[in-house]
């Protein structure tokens, strides 16, 4: 009898323990994710996270501020504005493909497309627009598309990130797949995204401070001194994958779409600070 009671109690405790995991969804994840960083770096306000690695070194921050006096991404924004305003051969333009003419909407991306059941990043939305009007898609990593994203993002500067995960099984599945990708170790070096941007956030990796995952998407696209031009979030994903000796996914793959969905959702409530500049 005593043994049976003990087993029932143990089973009940196990069930109670498993309950938070079973109930964990995007909203609970978001709360836990932001609380984790706020507990770890109590002196940082939520909006400070958009400054990424420059929260952890006064020297690096001072240099970064000097760089921002003449923002290196401004050429990309100008080129993007011109490309954005150029009419397609059929007379349409990018503005016709987006709500509000594409102005001040970057904070809502990535979005879940109920028709296709896929996550759509702002870059993919631009390419879909081109395809609808008979044009070839652009590279999702750099060049003209990155310039257009830079311009569109600049029109959302300061707006709060507002990624929505609708109550749709496919959207939840995409979010969960992105979450799994983020926390899964891969590559010969056995690193996950979280290894650097959660567990080692704020610490040095060689000469650089690692940016926390919270707020990391807010500055994209970014001008990286290493690149010498502006690149998209996907370009960074590819670079990170290669660094840990993992073969990157395709730029428009479900893996990167879902990763962007999860990661950007984790920064909901933080202001857009892009395009940005990084070393």
């Amino acid at each position, binding site marked *: 009898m005593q043994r049976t009671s003990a087993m029932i109690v143990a089973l009940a405790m196990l069930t109670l323990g498993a309950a938070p995991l079973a109930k964990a969804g995007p909203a609970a994840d978001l709360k*836990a994710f932001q609380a984790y960083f706020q507990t770890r770096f109590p002196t940082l306000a939520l909006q400070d996270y958009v400054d990424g690695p420059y929260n952890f070194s006064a020297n690096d921050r001072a240099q970064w501020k000097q760089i921002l006096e003449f923002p290196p991404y401004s050429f990309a924004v100008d080129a993007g504005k011109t490309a954005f305003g150029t009419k397609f051969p059929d007379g349409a333009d990018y503005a016709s493909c987006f709500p509000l003419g594409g102005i001040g909407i970057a904070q809502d991306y990535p979005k879940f497309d109920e028709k296709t059941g896929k996550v759509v990043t702002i870059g993919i939305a631009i390419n879909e627009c081109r395809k609808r009007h008979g044009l070839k898609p652009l590279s999702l990593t750099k060049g003209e598309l990155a310039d257009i994203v830079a311009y569109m993002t600049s029109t959302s500067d300061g707006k709060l990130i507002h990624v929505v995960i609708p109550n749709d099984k496919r959207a939840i599945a995409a979010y969960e797949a992105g979450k799994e990708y983020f*926390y899964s170790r891969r590559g*010969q070096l056995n690193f996950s995204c979280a290894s650097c941007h*959660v567990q080692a956030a704020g610490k040095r990796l060689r000469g650089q401070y690692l940016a926390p995952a919270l707020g990391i998407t807010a500055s994209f696209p970014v001008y990286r001194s290493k690149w010498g031009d502006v690149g998209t979030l996907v370009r960074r994903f590819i670079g990170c994958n290669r660094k840990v000796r*993992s073969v990157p996914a395709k730029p428009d793959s479900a893996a990167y779409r879902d990763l962007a969905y999860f990661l950007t959702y984790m920064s909901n409530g933080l202001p857009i600070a892009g395009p940005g500049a990084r070393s």
Partner: protein
Amino acid sequence: MKRINCVLVAATFCLGVAHAAGKDDAARAIAAAAAKMKTAATLDDQWTPTVASFKAAKAAEATGDYANAEATAKRAAALAAASIAQARSQKRLWRNAVTR
């Protein structure tokens, strides 16, 4: 003199057999590596050194360096096996890293 000729013929025959065996061994090793890499790719966890080793094995095979081809193909297979193990274990383990 006749004896020396026999020895030479035998040696040439042995070398030919060894050469053929090296070619077959290399081809087998490359095929085995390719199969493992296919599994790794299915699991979305291919490593760049695996691909590099495999390319090196194919290049060595093309130039007739079968010993090198076999060795690098076996290295590619070993790396692919490690990435498969990683991907399969991470299917379970990633949850431990989630912030709570």
